């Protein structure tokens, strides 16, 4: 049985993120989650590979004392895919940013999800290009004023959740950088999920986009503006747990429990394993001021994974084929003898 602690996953490299950057907390959650995952799945440390693209968050592999690959902008998902297909025994974690995964790497991102390759993607979403010092990203809010949009952007942002579920993703979770315990929970669930897991971490960039998520992350009103979804639990939120989500036949609605004829029994119970993608999509797309932002594991369903499919097909063809080595291949089909 693997008996690892968070120290085993800390490398000797100095962490160079800005003080107060949300990435510190996500790294800490990962270093705390992996020992638990190792315990649950009996994984040794050498089984982990941490892959990243380019950007602030992509520095993460250097801070993990595991096998790691810091690749090029946008391509982490393709590198992860290659690693997992080549050796499905390895367990692949990926750190990437919103610009990295959703702009330059958008194509690889959606296709990894479509293929349902068994990798764990942590998507650091700070709604800004940090490492290039403050340009808008594909998740920046409409009208965001940044260095490349001094008069405000005139483009709509992606909601990563809708993108993942639109590509028929099998696992999507969302959280805030500061939710250390929830993030450990999410990362453990992602590790146990067989398939492509996307964890959107709403991170704060203290330098270029400070407070981007403040409207939901501020402890003052976090519990009023977010809802933490947990399987089997009713979708209740609010400082006093007095509000809930109901489905009125057409769409989700926020109700005050005990008012307007709604009791606790009317409030929806979360089921991330429900195959029906509609409700998960509705939950992923909730936003203020009318709705709380959904945190936690929103969707976690089983489907065939690409890496298993590739491996099984190779096995199947090997068993059937008459060609088992290159000499046999060279003599297969039409040949003739010269004497």
């Amino acid at each position: 049985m693997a008996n690892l602690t968070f120290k085993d996953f800390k490398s000797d490299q100095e962490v160079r993120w800005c003080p107060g950057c949300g990435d510190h907390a996500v790294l800490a959650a990962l270093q705390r989650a992996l020992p638990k995952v190792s315990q649950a799945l009996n994984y040794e440390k050498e089984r982990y590979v941490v892959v990243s693209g380019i950007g602030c968050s992509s520095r993460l592999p250097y801070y993990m004392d595991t096998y790691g690959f810091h690749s090029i902008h946008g391509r982490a998902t393709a590198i992860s895919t290659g690693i997992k297909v080549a050796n499905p025994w390895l367990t692949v974690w990926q750190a990437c940013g919103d610009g990295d995964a959703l702009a330059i790497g958008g194509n690889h991102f959606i296709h990894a999800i479509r293929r349902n390759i068994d990798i764990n993607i942590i998507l650091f979403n700070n709604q800004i290009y940090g490492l290039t010092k403050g340009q808008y990203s594909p998740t920046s809010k409409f009208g965001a004023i940044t260095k490349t949009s001094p008069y405000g952007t005139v483009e709509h942002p992606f909601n990563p959740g809708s993108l993942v579920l639109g590509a028929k993703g099998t696992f999507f979770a969302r959280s805030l950088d500061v939710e250390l315990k929830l993030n450990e929970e999410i990362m453990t669930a992602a590790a146990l999920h067989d398939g492509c897991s996307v964890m959107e971490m709403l991170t704060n960039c203290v330098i270029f986009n400070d407070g981007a998520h403040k409207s939901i992350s501020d402890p003052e009103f976090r519990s009023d503006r977010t809802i933490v979804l947990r399987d089997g639990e009713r979708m209740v939120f609010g400082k006093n747990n007095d509000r809930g989500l109901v489905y009125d036949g057409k769409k989700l609605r926020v109700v005050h429990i005990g008012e307007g004829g709604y009791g606790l029994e009317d409030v929806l119970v979360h089921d991330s394993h429900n195959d029906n993608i509609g409700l998960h999509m509705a939950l992923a797309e909730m936003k203020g001021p009318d709705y709380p932002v959904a945190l936690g594991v929103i969707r976690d369903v089983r489907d065939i994974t690409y890496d298993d499919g590739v491996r099984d097909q190779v096995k199947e063809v090997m068993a059937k084929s008459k060609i088992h080595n290159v000499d046999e291949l060279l003599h297969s089909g039409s040949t003739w003898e010269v004497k």
Partner: protein
Amino acid sequence: MQLTGSLFADMSAIYGNSLSTFPDFPAEIRAPHGTVSGVSGFQVHIGSEGVGTPGDFCDLLVAMNPAALKSNAKWCKPTAMILVDGDAFDEKGMEKAGFQTENPFTELRVEDRAIIVAPISTLTQESLKESGLDAKTVLKCKNMFTLGMACYIYSRPLEYIYQYLERKFSKKHPELIEPNKKVLNDGFNYAANIQAIPNTYTVAPVKNKKPGTYRNITGNQAVAWGLLAASEKSGLPLFCGSYPITPATAILEELAIHKSLGAKTLQAEDEIAGICTAIGASYAGNLAVTTTSGPGLSLKSEALGLAVMAELPLVVVDVQRGGPSTGLPTKTEQSDLNQALYGRNGECPMPVIAAHSPSNCFDAAYFAAKIALEHMTPVMLLSEGFLGNGSEPWRVPVMADYPEIKPPFVNGVLTDGEKFHPFERDAETLVRRWAIPGQKGFEHRVGGLEKTHAGVLSTDPVNHETMVRERAEKVARVARRIPELEILHGPASGKLLVVGWGGTYGHLLNAVEEAGDVVSFVHFDYINPLPSNTEKVFGGFEKILVCELNSGQFVAWLRASLPQFNYLQYNKVQGQPFLVSELVDAIRKEL
């Protein structure tokens, strides 16, 4: 026509001829029928002695419509026979092909050739009148009628084609076997009966051919098989991440078939994902490959730099086509050499190897993989559309005869407190060691940022320069492990040395043989690094003539590498192979 041509070629190969083929087709899948730009051609050159090229001029031209005649009449020898489907030479067909007069033969000035106008469509319909097949299917059989006629002209037995038809149709369309056989036979008999064939040929099998098992192979197939061979020899599973692109796609298709040898193929979402999945697979310990053509290679440039920086083995196959941009997708060229040598940011050298014939693609791929795996570097393997689609008979090798492939794996365990330094180098080769993930204690990080030997990020100026030099020197030292340059024809020193690389090998060899014994010839399979004796060989000649299918990319590389010599150049950039005759002229000019 592609099928008819390849059947004739395969049959001739089995019969024992030496041969070379050159399929030349438009980029469109169903190009406008009957137009000159839509002509799909297949050139076969057979002989009783070494055939090195698909040939310049032909003895028999088969034209199924006026457009095919128009675009190919110029390739007929004065003694050639021209066989056409008379049914296709109606008003409409003539108009589509843009003929101005009523007699296409005089208009093209080939009226003095032996012309056979056979109503092939009508005869095929007649032949299959009672077959019960629909009119469309019947007309599709006219190529078999033509093949039957060609078999008569070249005295070929029909058995091989019978067997082929049985194999091809037995599962899905057994009803097509007999009609096709009948048409083939009727075509053969028609040619025998019309008394219009001025001469028939008997091309005897090659004598004193080295005993062994032979097969016909295309360059793309040979690349795929060479990679499978390297996978077997190294004990590493093959991973190919690729995106379909003409004319390289057949390599991915071929590898996709051979899962029984453990090959994994990933048809990626784009060219970049092709190479990046391969880089990931390499990091995870597979023999990783990505295959492409020029435009795709452009897209892979950044990732190639990553593979150089991370010092991971990778084989990149570029089956070159006419460029720039989309260029001439189905035509051949050698114009990606500069891209292969220089097409990356930073100082970013990698070994570059070129295949010189369809069957040589097997060895070229095998040794590209061997160098990649043993030197921990991406290797660029240049093929060409001409090689990839072309075929030739090949005496199949025995895997036991191939050298071992031994990657520099880390061995054993680390002592207590010892850390693995991923970029520490072997003193002789400057190659780093390969620690495949999954091994306890060897956890390390690689990536695109500059690092120290210990694998720690560093922007230290001196460290950067050291690493740049070491990466370059590592590639340069590959020269110690590759074969020396050999003089393939002519004296070891003298007046003129003809130099080639890649797929022009057969044409150049034939040309120097024709030009005479005083002309010497070398051909480069290894481009970067150049063979270590290159300077010595070049030093023996008054003139060096570099011939290539581009505007002078290899000659520029030679000028940069060995500037002390005076180079002449002969270039062609038409999307077509050299003609032996034009090479002979160019060589004689320098004598």
